[in-house]
């Protein structure tokens, strides 16, 4: 099938960048989206043009490295799917696709579709952990975790840190990402001692990174490849408000 791509090309952080149109006359519907980009890049190299830079690694939907906007949707039109697991059979012959990098002040463009997401790491470094030095843990069965709590914690822990939530959010907020980590750890007994400081520290870091503010629109939830629920944002809000009131 024939696919027309409009791709954001930008040499580096200082370049202005622009959309460039490419025609792919022979796309196999069995290809993954990234394999289509591989084919485009092979064509470009053959024509002595620089290939399109895009982040990707595991190509099985778990590393969180890949992702771009496809016609205004983060990771493209299929719910619960990363870009690497999206296949071309979900598109039609003659489709015109606009590919843009994640856009947020906190995610500056590095090149083409590649952005810098280290702001996420700094949010985790601010408090997204349980402070336990190697070797000091008690027996694994010393702490019991109700099955339902473990399951809900796992739902939140499934976050792959891809940044689609930020990219899709009209406010470029990192609420779903931050909330997912706060919920993951806050739902477990091991996470209780640091729960309040964690919320204060991570929320403050997200603001410092210049992410926007959540307005409960739910677009993050709609595009999250791991289908993490807005509920985690409420948990973050609750933990933050409680921590603020209790004076930590």
């Amino acid at each position, binding site marked *: 099938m024939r696919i027309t791509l409009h791709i954001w090309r930008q*040499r*580096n952080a200082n370049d202005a960048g622009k959309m460039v149109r490419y025609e792919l006359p022979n796309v*196999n519907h*069995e290809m993954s989206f*990234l*394999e289509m980009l*591989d084919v485009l*890049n*092979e064509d470009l*190299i*053959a024509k*002595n*043009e*620089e*290939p399109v830079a895009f982040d*990707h*690694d*595991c*190509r*099985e939907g*778990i590393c969180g*490295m890949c992702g771009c906007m496809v016609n205004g949707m983060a990771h493209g039109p299929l719910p619960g799917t990363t870009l690497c*697991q999206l296949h071309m059979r979900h598109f039609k012959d003659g489709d015109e696709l606009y590919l843009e990098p994640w856009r947020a002040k906190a995610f500056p463009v*590095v*090149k083409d579709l*590649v952005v*810098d*997401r*280290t702001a*996420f*790491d700094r949010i*985790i*470094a*601010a*408090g*997204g*952990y*349980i*402070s*336990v*030095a*190697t*070797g*000091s*843990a*008690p*027996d*694994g069965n010393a*702490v*019991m*975790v109700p099955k339902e709590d*473990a399951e809900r914690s*796992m739902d939140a822990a*499934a976050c*792959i*840190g891809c940044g689609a939530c930020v990219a899709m959010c009209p406010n470029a907020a990192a609420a779903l990402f931050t909330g997912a980590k706060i919920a993951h*750890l806050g739902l*477990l007994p*091991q*996470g209780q001692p640091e729960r309040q400081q964690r919320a204060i520290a991570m929320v403050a870091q997200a603001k410092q990174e210049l992410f926007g503010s959540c307005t409960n629109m739910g677009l993050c939830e709609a595009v999250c490849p791991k289908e993490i629920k807005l509920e985690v944002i409420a948990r973050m809000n609750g933990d933050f408000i409680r921590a603020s009131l209790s004076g930590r």
Partner: protein
Amino acid sequence: MELNSKSPSGPIETRWERHRFNLKLVNPSNKRKYTIIVVGSGLAGGSAAASLAELGYNVHCFCFQDSPRRAHSIAAQGGINAAKNYHNDGDSIYRLFYDTVKGGDFRARESNVYRLAGISLNIIDQCVAQGVPFAREYSGYLDNRSFGGAQVSRTFYARGQTGQQLLLGAYQALERQIGLGAVKMFPRTEMLDLIVVDGRARGIVTRDLITGKIESHFADAVVLGTGGYGNAYYLSTNAKGCNATAIWRAHKRGALFANPCFTQIHPTCIPVSGEYQSKLTLMSESLRNDGRVWVPAKKGDKRAPSQIPEGERDYFLERKYPSFGNLVPRDVASRNAKAACDEGRGVGETGLAVYLDFRDAIQRLGASVIKERYGNLFDMYNRITGEDPYSQPMRIYPAMHYTMGGLWVDYNLMSNVPGLYVIGEANFTDHGANRLGASALMQGLADGYFVLPNTIGDYLASNKFEKVDASHAAAREAEANVNQITQRLLGAKGKRSVDSYHRELGKIMWEHCGMARNAEGLKQALALIPPLREQYWSDVRVLGTGEDLNQSLEKAGRVADFFELAELICRDALDRNESCGGHFREEYQTPEGEAARDDEHYAYAAAWEFQGVGQPPLLHKEPLTFEYVHPSQRSYK
């Protein structure tokens, strides 16, 4: 060269304890005076960097991805083994040790494996404390399942994302140390050379992948936790970025490479669909618990699976291995699938696939039970292939998955280059010739959390370290080497892309050094690879500059190393005239077609010393002795 494994002797149960007591310690207040470089941030590298920083060392950690959380450990699905015996089903440290030595087909070091089995207990405790949301029973206690044919339930898991959750635990511990300033993290930075000063590893040369800046970093010890080399085969279950560059360039600086031919093929992967295929997706081997593997009995039968009557199907694993059936180990299942396809009985458009059929299980248990057990995997299969495994059988084919070989290390995880430590999949030790399911995560974390932090202090405390900086001749030479490689790749200005060469190399490797090997094929591969490598250096086309993010340039350097490594893999495979574990030589099989080991001549780890590109490497042998688990023939009939 004398290979001293430094394995302790005496009763195996107390070897690690006695060894630890004999190691020198670094005074707590002196630890911050030592700098340690950790390359790689997966389960091994990430856990090591975090634990070393907790001890007080000054740690510099490097990864080529944009964040340490992306390392490919994240993709492990099934689980992690630990001999907790929570199920009272007869498990013990000794049994895990026994299973691992036997599963590795008697090509691993007993001391290391016993230590690994013992540490498995601490790993679970540590990960639970970090907040890894392991699966729980309704009582709130940890749940286990049996995995990969083990006869006890010792596998801990977090849905089908155990690797992800364990990695995030290590990543969070690492980020905590970064936040505290104890670790300096260098994401999107690739190690391109090792700096060896006076015979000791003292630093690395890196390229900043965004600015292209080539820089030297110095330390008192260098730790490589950079994973395996399965991508030498181009198509594998590894992430696209997985590469052997760090270990290969360390090898070129003198580190021995052990057992490179020990590669593992995973039987249940989604088959290749076309030339554009970029990677292979693994599906958990738990699928074989309920799925039945078959191909049409007749050659070239192109009917849809539902049109093939029961009598014209060949359930070849059940036929050949009546007692284990579809649950035979990975290598046996893989080889038999290949044999069926080689006979022309493969299915699907390419003929390179066999069916994994759930029809009978769905009839017996109902679709809802199957959905509960494998829903995620079925959804993933459906997403990738567009086919519904509830109504038609899955098509599967084996794929390159894991590499047991790697840089040679002693009991302290130090390579033969003093100060160079190698951990996780990057080293060669614990799995012998074949890795058991749910053991990779265990080894990576054992090395990083519990072994290395104990052993590295001995080296630091026993040596004096003069200051080294970028003006040192060794650093200047290493930087010049890296610059020269970059310039050569950019300057070739040839006709073909990096990927096209990588794909071609992968085909040679898969064809001649894949699931089954023979001397003739290996010799052919050894005749094909060097000219292709030569052509690559003169004909590769890498566009753009070295001063920007340049993904083609990154790949080009890695593929150049795969060419040299591929040659070593074939050489090692040709040299090992026996079949064991993942290394199956067609000439060496029992009358029943099973792997025939030759313990008399090949009970050693083959550690190769680099002698120059295109030069035959030098073989050193570390003999393996088995005092506890006595070599026997595996049988799954």
